[in-house]
């Protein structure tokens, strides 16, 4: 290697690029990623929305840190919002009011931050639903599913720590509830609360502590997990929907440069634009209406931010007493009575815990039940996995019942029904709703699969009414083309696998359990149409059905 042979660029840009390239080896990166193929589908955008709203959160949040004072020092408000002038409040609340009223564009940035946060958790959730319902979590992506789940939890943590920072009446009551939940934890609860608040509630320490968590720890963890998440996406290559030409061994889509980069990059600006529009027009978290935190007042119809709703709703659904029986158990010990606060512990921990436990474990549960340890890069259409879609729907209903319960008072006032009745109904739905959702969703999936079979075997309805020589009317059916047919017939068809003996010929109890679940999941199934079935159907119908064959018109 001699310098005389070294490449020199002829243009200024070329020389600059060459300088960088020879220092960092950018050519390798461009070679690897420049034309990397990404499959395209509208449902893949939810993850992008989550990423982009997170970027917006970092941008707007950084702006807010320059003005926000995370201190609970008691001061008198002297800013320009007249109704609160002269009122005592914490410096945190006063500086939030200053951002809103005395920093130009500060209100807008607060709104962008809050709306982005709401959208961030929403898009994370919907993205996870997409991944679940299409089976994208299957091998080799199980760990990325878990990383995604932790990201969702961190999203909730980021949201809650930020929500509490202004130290207004609404968020203060939220902290009060957190204090109550902490104190319910057996043995350690009281101390946990004392350490968290630096003494008794509310104290003067909790806002700065939440601030550290909110602007450093939680975002750092999110960024770390985000990098791991995206790194794994690149390692695995993106999944794709099934279809002609799309197999488990290939990726069909658009190259990063220019098409995918343009679409994804452009989409960032679209998300930004939409958030900016919402933030300009729709008011969110008007803390000046709530006033500073005071343990005595509370406004009726208090609502947490939407993503905390399901836990708050669970708290509301739980009965504290049933007749004379109280869910606060006083357990006699030699040193005196201790209280086990089940009325708070059960709803605060069990439903959310169960939801996340099943969610995290689901890839392994499914692998165990189906005995399917293959790599899956082709997604399932939700209807083609009725058991999973039904489980997902049950989970969604379970979540939504709790979520609705968080607004039980608003439901009661809006629809003029008794608050108690709303709660009773939601208690019933809490148990019955997921079961009904499971059953109903599975029936719908199976029906849709039958519809697919019908279309393949007998053609699609052409919308043309024919009159037969005998005078009878019938709708003309056109056979679907080979591409559509391939989509409708090529899917992963899970079947009931009876209990298998192990090497010693013994059927373990665990295996019997697996077989039971397998039977429950896969006993009812609709198999894809096979070529021989199609032949038989065609033979039975005669040839008049096939005249609409589209094949040659497409291939011309």
């Amino acid at each position, binding site marked *: 290697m001699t310098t005389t042979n070294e490449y020199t660029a002829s243009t200024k840009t070329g020389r600059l690029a060459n300088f960088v390239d020879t220092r960092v080896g950018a050519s390798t990166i461009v070679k690897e990623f420049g*034309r990397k193929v990404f499959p*395209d589908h509208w449902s893949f955008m939810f993850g992008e929305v989550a990423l982009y709203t997170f970027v917006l959160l970092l941008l707007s949040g950084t702006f807010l840190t320059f003005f926000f004072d995370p201190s609970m020092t008691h001061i008198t408000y002297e800013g*320009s919002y007249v109704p609160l002038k002269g009122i005592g409040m914490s410096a945190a609340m006063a500086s939030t009011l200053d951002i809103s009223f005395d920093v*130009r*564009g500060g209100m*807008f940035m607060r709104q962008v931050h809050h709306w982005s946060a709401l959208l961030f958790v929403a898009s994370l959730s919907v993205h996870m639903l997409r991944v679940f319902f299409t089976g994208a979590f299957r091998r080799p992506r199980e760990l990325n599913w878990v990383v995604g789940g932790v990201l969702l939890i961190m999203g909730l943590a980021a949201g809650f720590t930020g929500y509490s920072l202004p130290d207004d009446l609404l968020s203060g*009551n939220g902290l009060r*509830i957190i204090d*109550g939940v902490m*104190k*319910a934890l057996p043995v350690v609860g*009281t101390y946990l609360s004392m*350490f968290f608040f*630096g*003494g*008794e*509630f*509310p104290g003067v320490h909790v806002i700065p502590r939440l601030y550290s968590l909110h602007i450093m720890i939680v975002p750092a963890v999110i960024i770390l997990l985000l990098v791991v998440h995206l790194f794994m996406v690149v*390692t695995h*290559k993106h999944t794709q929907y099934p279809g*002609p*030409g799309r197999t488990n061994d*290939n*990726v*069909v889509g658009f*190259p990063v440069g220019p*098409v995918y980069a*343009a679409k994804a990059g*452009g989409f960032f*600006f*679209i*998300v930004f*634009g939409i958030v*900016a529009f*919402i933030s*300009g027009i729709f008011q969110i978290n008007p803390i000046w209406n709530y006033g500073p935190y*005071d343990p*005595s*007042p*509370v*406004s009726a119809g208090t609502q947490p931010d939407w993503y905390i709703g399901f836990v*708050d709703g669970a708290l509301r*659904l739980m009965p*504290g*007493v049933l007749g004379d029986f*109280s*869910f606060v158990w006083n357990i006699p010990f030699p040193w005196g*009575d*201790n*209280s086990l*606060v089940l009325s*708070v512990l059960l709803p605060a921990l069990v439903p959310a815990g169960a939801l996340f436990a099943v969610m995290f474990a689901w890839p392994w549960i499914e692998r165990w039940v189906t005995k399917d340890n293959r790599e899956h890069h082709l997604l399932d259409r939700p209807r083609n996995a009725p058991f999973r879609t039904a489980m997902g729907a049950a989970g969604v209903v379970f979540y939504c019942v709790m979520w609705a319960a968080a607004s*039980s008072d608003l439901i009661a006032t809006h629809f003029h029904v008794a*608050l108690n009745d709303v*709660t009773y109904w939601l208690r019933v739905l809490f148990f019955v709703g997921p079961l009904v959702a499971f059953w109903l969703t599975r029936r719908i999936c199976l029906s849709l699969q039958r519809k697919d079979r019908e279309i393949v075997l007998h053609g699609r309805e052409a919308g043309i009414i024919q009159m037969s020589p005998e005078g009878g009317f019938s709708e003309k059916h056109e056979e679907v083309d*080979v591409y559509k047919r391939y989509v409708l017939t090529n899917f992963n068809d899970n079947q009931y696998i009876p209990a298998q003996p192990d090497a010693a010929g013994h059927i373990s109890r665990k295996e019997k359990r697996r077989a039971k679940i397998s039977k429950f999941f896969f006993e009812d199934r609709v198999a894809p*149409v096979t*070529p*021989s079935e199609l032949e038989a159907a065609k033979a039975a119908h005669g040839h008049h059905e096939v005249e609409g064959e589209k094949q040659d018109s497409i*291939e011309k």
Partner: protein
Amino acid sequence: MGDHSHGSPENSGTVAKADDVAQDRFPDPGLPPHRPRLADRDPRAAKRHERQVALLFTISIIGTLFFFVAYFVLGHLGDMTFAELRVQNAALGLGTAFAMLGIGVGIVHWAKTLMPDHELVESRHEIRTEADRQDAVDIVDTIIDESGIKRRPLIRNTLIGAIALAPIPAIFMFRDLERSGKTAGEMVEQLRHTMWDTGVRLTRDPSGTPIKASDVQIGSAFHVIPEGLNEAEDVLNEKAKAVVLLMRMDPQEMNISEGREDWNVDGIVAYSKICTHVGCPIALYEQHTHHLLCPCHQSTFDLANECKVVFGPAGHALPQLPITVDAEGYLVAQSDFHEPVGPAYWERGQ
């Protein structure tokens, strides 16, 4: 990188897999043929799309300029009315929205109409090849061997011990998150005490003016704080425990349990305002049903039955503050609460 090919039935870069056919499946017809878009065939359509994209970018420029107008012309420091602020906020939002949507929609429109829409096919690779695995195993073995960690258990075991112990101080450092210097017992004990004590006057929240028994009519309700609260050292901490609701009921309608007969003054009763569920203030009193309702989680307490829980998630009744009147006719506390106020906790007991 995989071999790219433009999808067509003849050459889609994919082949139907043998086992699919063996399972009586339809063969993979390969990628559908590419359908040209308008702009691919008609140069005038392409030109039109080009102009549309440029227009969208121009809209973005106008949006950014509009932002400056909103910032400098509509907004000014100090004494902005709320209405002005709203207009400015909306204008900033719209300016930013146009600035961003112009760019975003423009780029996406450009990508969809003018950039090639041929889908490419790339093959997937094994995530881990067997050869790589063996190489990795060899490397790890070499590392273990060269470090000698297996051959020298003394080093290994002491290192494990050291590493296991080293982080524990970091956990203990957090002890002073609570630095009142109280012992564990004192920390728990303070939850049992409030500012209320013998002879402390009941005063209005937030003004702090005392209340005469004669001021309290049947059906009325007062939000009450102990006298001197506003001058206390930790106002909010004390208030979070000491707030009380004062109501008057017809004594005939009240069920009074043994030992509490003299806790009310002619049907005037005082109960802790802090919900026994998770601590929200119970702000709603419905005099018709004499129920108290917590707006956070709808725990409902029956005033006629010593605030026992009649609905909702609270697990026990609201603590009652024993009251009486002093020589001047003002309501005063007989003592502190006889049980801890607020949410139940492990050490609360009966």
